[in-house]
């Protein structure tokens, strides 16, 4: 109720109101960075609100820590799993709730009992490391149940699941709702939301903008509510596609670390100069691996990668970059930036062997600074200078720096993984504009994104990825997000 949460430089939640009735599935929608997770963390006592209050069954409460929320019957399944790989399933579940049933046989019996409810079918003594994603999620739910929570927060539980698993999850949720559990359900996937929710609250830029009835509302209407009216359209109308193939990937196959599974399975694709090829897919279907394999960060078992006339199949990452590939990684803090280094040092990363930042084996620091300043100017990176550490910038500005860097040195091909994830509208528009400009100048772009509007708007052609394979092609001129969504989940046979 009237929750406000400020972080330095950003107001994550601003006077948000949320009413959840007992026994309902209440969905929360909003763009990346809208403040959904923050609100949930506040409800769960992991963060303290700066203003506002929380009431449970009419009486005001104040959670200073998760354990207090747990005591009040609230449990949370986090967007990023909160599990310990080296502990057993039972230990993961028990942790923090040892006082309920001890940590011995009694607890194990209880876990076995509850496991049925969540559809978990493994021995509680199994080490967590051996479980797949869906089972991990079941363990997360089991944790919540074990604590006797009646209100369960699910933060983007479906992002990592394949459709059958989503169906199983929904069956579990429905079953539990019938038993009187209340759910707070967060998802970006509007059709899912409409399928499971009883009520939907939409959050935009930290504020609640209204509620909707899932039976009455369309996905389009929901999307409009989420992004507001100033929705920038990533449209790329005039065609610049040439018939000059820049990237040719043939028969790329990658096995999982344990060697048992094909993460990439015979991928063939071609990107032409001036073309944006979009890859659609539910997270975890091999897009990350595809990008990293093309970048040479993972070694494919079979298959070839050509850039123009060059065969890069066995080249290292740096050689591939030198050949003309720019790379905007999906996780900028882990893969894109050196957080504690100044901006100019970040400009060097990935370009350390090329002008303007290097001459031979030596770095050219003055030129590096000048060029970083150019990026700051051209890409509107909001910073007092190029000497500040990258970690001091906000996500959007970090991303603009990364995109600016990767478009430097006139690459032939840009591989952009979720280039606007967690980035505000202004930055998003700028990044789109820059990609469009470069494409006009003949750049080939391989675009991976979970944002279907971005994908449809920016791409010249789209391929759908499912379980390590490219399973379908779509024409962005005619395809709708709904159709694409269906194909991504394998439901559009």
């Amino acid at each position, binding site marked *: 109720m009237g929750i*406000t949460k*400020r972080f*330095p*430089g*950003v*107001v994550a939640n*601003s006077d948000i109101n949320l009413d959840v009735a007992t026994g309902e599935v209440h969905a929360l929608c909003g763009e990346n960075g809208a403040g959904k997770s923050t609100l949930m963390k506040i409800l769960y006592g992991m963060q303290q609100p700066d203003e506002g209050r929380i009431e449970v069954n009419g009486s005001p409460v104040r959670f200073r820590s998760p354990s207090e929320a747990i005591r009040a019957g609230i449990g949370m399944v986090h967007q990023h799993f909160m599990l310990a790989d080296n502990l057993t399933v039972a230990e993961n579940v028990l942790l923090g709730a040892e006082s309920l049933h001890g940590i011995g046989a009694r607890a194990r019996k209880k876990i076995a009992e509850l496991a049925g409810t969540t559809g978990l079918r493994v021995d509680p003594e199994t080490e967590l490391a051996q479980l797949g994603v869906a089972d991990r999620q079941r363990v997360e739910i089991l944790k919540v149940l074990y604590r006797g929570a009646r209100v369960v927060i699910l933060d983007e539980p479906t992002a990592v699941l394949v459709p059958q698993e989503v169906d199983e999850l929904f069956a579990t949720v429905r079953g539990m709702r019938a038993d009187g559990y209340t759910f707070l359900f967060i998802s970006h996937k509007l059709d899912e939301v409409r399928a499971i929710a009883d009520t939907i609250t939409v959050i935009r830029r*930290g504020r609640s903008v209204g509620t909707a009835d899932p039976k009455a509302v369309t996905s389009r209407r929901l999307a409009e509510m989420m992004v507001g009216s100033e929705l920038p359209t990533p449209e790329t109308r005039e065609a610049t596609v040439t018939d000059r193939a820049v990237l040719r990937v043939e028969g790329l196959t990658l096995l999982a670390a344990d060697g048992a599974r094909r993460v990439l399975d015979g991928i063939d694709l071609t990107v032409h100069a001036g073309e944006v090829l979009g890859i659609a897919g539910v997270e975890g279907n091999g897009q990350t691996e595809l990008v990293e394999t093309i*970048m040479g*960060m993972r070694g494919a078992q079979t298959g070839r990668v050509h850039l123009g006339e060059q065969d890069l199949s066995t080249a*290292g*990452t*740096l*050689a*591939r*970059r*030198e050949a003309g590939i720019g*790379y905007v*990684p999906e996780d900028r803090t*882990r*893969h*894109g*930036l*050196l*957080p*504690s*280094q100044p901006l100019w*040092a970040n400009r*060097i*990363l*990935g370009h*350390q*062997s090329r002008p303007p930042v*290097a001459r031979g*084996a*030596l*770095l050219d*620091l003055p030129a590096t600074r000048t060029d970083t300043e150019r990026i700051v100017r051209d890409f509107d990176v*909001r*910073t*007092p200078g190029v000497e*500040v*550490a990258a*970690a*001091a*910038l*906000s996500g*959007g*500005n970090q991303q603009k720096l990364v995109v600016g860097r990767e478009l430097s040195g006139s690459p032939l091909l840009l591989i952009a993984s979720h280039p606007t994830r967690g980035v*505000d509208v*202004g930055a998003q528009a700028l990044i789109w504009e820059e990609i469009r400009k470069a494409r006009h100048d003949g750049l080939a772009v391989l675009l991976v994104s979970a944002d279907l509007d971005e994908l449809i708007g920016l791409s010249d052609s789209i391929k759908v990825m499912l379980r390590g394979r490219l399973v379908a092609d779509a024409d962005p001129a005619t395809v709708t997000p709904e159709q694409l969504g269906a194909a991504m989940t394998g439901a559009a046979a």
Partner: protein
Amino acid sequence: MTAAVATALTGGVKGRFLAPALALLFAALLCGIALLISGDSPWLALSTMVGQVTQGTTAVDILNSAAVYYVSGLAVALGFQMKLFNIGVEGQFRLAACVAAIVGGALVLPPVLHTLVIILVAVLVGAAWAGIAAVLRAYRGVSEVISTIMLNAIATGLIAYLIRPDTFGVLQGNNISTQPITPSGRFPGISFGESGTVLGMVFVAAALGFGYWFLLGRTRFGFELRASGESPTAAAAGGVNARRMTLVALLLSGAMAGLVGLPELLGRDFAYTLNAPQGYGFTGIAIALLGRNHPVGVALGSLLWAFLDKAALALDNVGVPREIAVIMQGVSVIAVVIAYEIVRRYELTAQRRRVTGASPAAAPAGAAS
């Protein structure tokens, strides 16, 4: 430390020196209190130590020792830059000095060349001994911390074997020594008469410091090294080969370690004996920490350390336990390390604040509050 002080400190270069200086002051204060408790006068201790610098060869000794510590500190710091903890500088430098002394004593070569060969041998031996840890780390995933600790002990055994009179050693009275290096292989120093002789390799150490600075700050290799240390994932995405960097970084660190024993070997002792100095490798770790892996910081750290070592000898004259210098060294390291950490955090927060102040984009969000 209050927030106000810390923010005042974080302004650029000044902050970089003020924080460790405050930490050192804190360490000195603590030692002063320890002295007071044990009934000694901190002031007497300090003035004795400072006064000692002008006595005899102490000033020159400090410089010579600092040079040795400096090379050792740089060797450690080079690994630290990549978050590799080469605890094995100790073993590397001793083995390198021993083998270099054996080779140098056995060879007859024209001046300069003779010296260069000895230096080369030391560098190679140091690198090779570190190379064992490097290979184990890069290909077998063995933590270099553990492997180098083991290798230190094994190096001791190897050295003992190498200088046995029936292998390469020569019995000299109650001592065992390698064959002395003839004058052609020595590295001349600069004599200051009564005040001692500055070892020639002091200048090599200074040059090494410059080389280290240049390598890390101005070359692609240095950038890749630091990038791998800061974020292995980002470095990999930027095209840095992590395994290669691990190997090269440890080999270079070992090569540098190989030089640690040479200033004294080539400028003073001319042979490796049972009394050959030990412990420089461990001192190097402390000094790299004090100097935050920065060539100037490491230089200041080694000077401080050498001062504490040499000037403390005078404490015996006034009846103050000279162990107080060791405590001072220990406390400084931990205080400086913590001070760096605090400053780092304040720096980031301050920068964030400046970024937000500078970026109008944050304004709407800020206004909403």
